[in-house]
């Protein structure tokens, strides 16, 4: 697809989408949002870039393959269960640490559920992007 309007719009919107997806991710524990939604928004951003500039450009933008994104996400999600085990509690026990203030998402608390949510984010984004790429490249 070759459209100047789409390209210009995509150039502006895509970074916003990615930033918004991260915002959704980190505020998800208290407000509507979360890793699943965040991941989908991120995937939409990448897909938009792919439609505007072509899939090879989107792949270059992503730097890693979507499969790897998925793998890393799955690994992080599984990893977030381990601290509980180490402390002698059941696998996946939620453990919370300190928090830092953020400008727009309020207090950001660190803990294993957040790590888990990051994993969800990466898996969902990876799979959605993977699907879009595969379908779009399929000739």
């Amino acid at each position, binding site marked *: 697809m070759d459209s100047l309007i789409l390209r210009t719009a995509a150039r502006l919107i895509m970074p916003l989408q990615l930033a918004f997806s991260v915002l959704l991710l980190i505020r998800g524990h208290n407000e509507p949002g979360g890793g699943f939604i965040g991941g989908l928004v991120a995937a939409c951003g990448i897909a938009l870039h792919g439609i505007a500039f072509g899939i090879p450009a989107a792949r270059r933008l992503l730097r890693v393959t979507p499969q790897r994104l998925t793998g890393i996400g799955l690994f992080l999600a599984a990893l977030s269960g381990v601290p509980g085990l180490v402390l002698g509690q059941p696998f996946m026990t939620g453990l919370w640490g300190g928090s830092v203030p953020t400008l727009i998402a309020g207090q950001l608390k660190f803990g294993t*559920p957040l790590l888990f949510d990051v994993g969800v984010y990466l898996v969902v984004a990876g799979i959605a992007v993977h699907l879009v790429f595969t379908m779009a490249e399929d000739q």
Partner: protein
Amino acid sequence: MLTVLITIFVLAAAGPLLHRVLRGATGWALALPVIVITGWFASLVPAVSGGEVIMESRPWVPALDLDLAFRVDGWSLLFLLLIAGIGALILIYAGGYLHGHRHEGRFFGFLLLFMGSMLGLVAADNLIVMFIFWELTSFSSYLLIGFNHEDKKSRAAALQALLVTGGGGLALLAGIILIGQAGGTFSFSALLESPDVLRGHALYLPILLLVLAGAFTKSAQVPFHFWLPGAMAAPTPVSAYLHSATMVKAGIFLLGRFYPLLGGTGVWHTVVTGVGAATMLTGALLALPQTDLKRLLAYSTVSGLGILTMLLGIGTALAVKAAAVFLIVHSLYKGALFMVAGAVDHEAGTRDVRALSGLCKVMPITAMAAGAAALSMIGFPPLLGFIGKELLYEANLAAPFAAPYYTAAAVGANILMVAVAIMVGYRPFHGPAQLPAKPLHEPSPALWLGPLVLAALAVVAGLFPSLVDRPLVSAAVSAIRATETTVELKLWHGPNLVLLLSVITVLAGMVVYRLRGRLRTLAAQIAPLARFGPECAYELGLRALTAVADRQTRWLQHGYLRGYVLTVLGVATVLAAFALVRFGPVPLWIGFEDVRAHEIAIGVLILSAALVAANARSRIAAVVALGVVGYSVALVYGLYGAPDLAVTQILVETLTLVLFVLVVVHLPQFSALSTPRRRRWDAVMAGGAGLVITLLVLKALHVDSGERVSQYYAENALRAQGRNVVNVILVDFRALDTLGELAVLSVAAIGVFALLRLRPGPRKEDR
């Protein structure tokens, strides 16, 4: 014990890596820890032979009465020593045999995995744990037998072994579950405290038959004997290990293990002894006409296993003693002879006994080991094999039932075994040296060390039977008979009937050996009879199974998307309707008093969009109309206070739309393929599904399931540091579920990739 198992499994995992570093020395290096483990087992001998039973237990799944419990008594210890000891020698041997093989490292991994499984199997106290190890041996032996996986025959043999022993494994599992129900526990030690419970139970017969099915398939008893010779497709180190001390002896172990619980009854005697005797004769008869060294040994293994089964079936103290001794004898000579066969094959390039002769001049050490092992197999004094054979005859003569028949069968089988032993251990090494195609020489030490050590052990144990009787055999017999028994072995019993039988056996065996040529011709003439053998039943069964699977796949996976959708929709509708009927009448009127105008508007929007989608004349129009449905549903979610759901729905809808458009581009021109009649049928199905779902929703409004889990979540979400209950449920309360879903999603993504990218057909060269 657990430490030992973990060590071996870790070594198995590290095998391929170690091989990358150590190359040729891997076999020796891996043998070291195994030798240490053997040493540790040996250090347990004094305690165990003193009547002690070493227990070790660690909770695993306490809720299911499942502990990682281990029990080392005399019978297990005997096996532990054989498995680890011979295993160490096999590791060294494999290092020499497979030297330079492309997958040598992987082989060590498989071998150690198998070793660990066997050790776990014989040491397990919890029957479920034992079963898990039992299955692990089937699984790892599959990898070992099919090691040359590029060879079709290898793969078929591996599959055959897996299916036969795996089928038996299922029977064993059923038997174990019944034991658990009848005895109230899966702990072998606990069952042993009231040993008569199972024998007197109404389920005794099914339990016995199921357990026996497991043991007989694993130990290649008639009519399941055919997988064992087939498994000769494996590399020789595997054959030497699986068929001497391990895999096939697992069934024997099981018989001994369960003897105190299930043995000694009339059925046990009849079935076990009968099958054992039949196997002993079948194996011996089938061995004779073979010309391949490994097949000769394979059938003689079948015969040896038959002897062991028969002895355990007889079950007198004498018979059990004979079984324990013969177990050692057989493991030693069979391991040695297999390794010799492999060494000969490795050096001379053939295993055909007709083509081999005069090798003792070029490989004297191997010849010596082969000779000693064969003498033990023949039962020649002063080797341990002689003691074993004397005991066998003695036990048969003293059997409480049908003694003359069993004795005659044993003598007959042993005569044939003598002939086989001469063919394997004597024939290739003596006689005129043939002109070799290449200069022959003694194989590397790795290849002769194993057979030499095993053969030497057979000699030493024969000369000094006190080395094995009290420490090993007494404890093993005590464990099987569940009574304290002291065994003393002697080489010389004085001139008696048993000795006479031994002499007859050896002499007659030599005569048979002389007549071998004529017997082979005879065997070739009756070979077509094999068409009625159990192996053909296996082949037919396998073919029928794949044929049924083929039909059924074609019938279910017809490739029409509308068919799939119809099936899914129809089944879901029927199931939901069934549930509705069960839950009683549905209130049909809920009142529309508080319905607001915008809600009606959304409803109209959804309905009309759906109608447009169903009647669209182009794909894009249909996709867009479906998108309208999706967004409107998201609107409903938003209106009723589920913002997370609404956002998710919108995003998913957007992505789906994008994907649809990407796919639609590649599809051919839209055309109405359905006949009007079909479309009417589709409408009926869709209407039915919609009706049932509507009723379901109406019903759901009026069902009070009592306790509300949402209350709990809402109250505890803040304790989990979050105000967004939906997200807290996803990432904290039910995080394990989410993790599972993530994994499923990832696998699905791989599936999509495979479906779209990996198409059959000519591949491009550049990929």
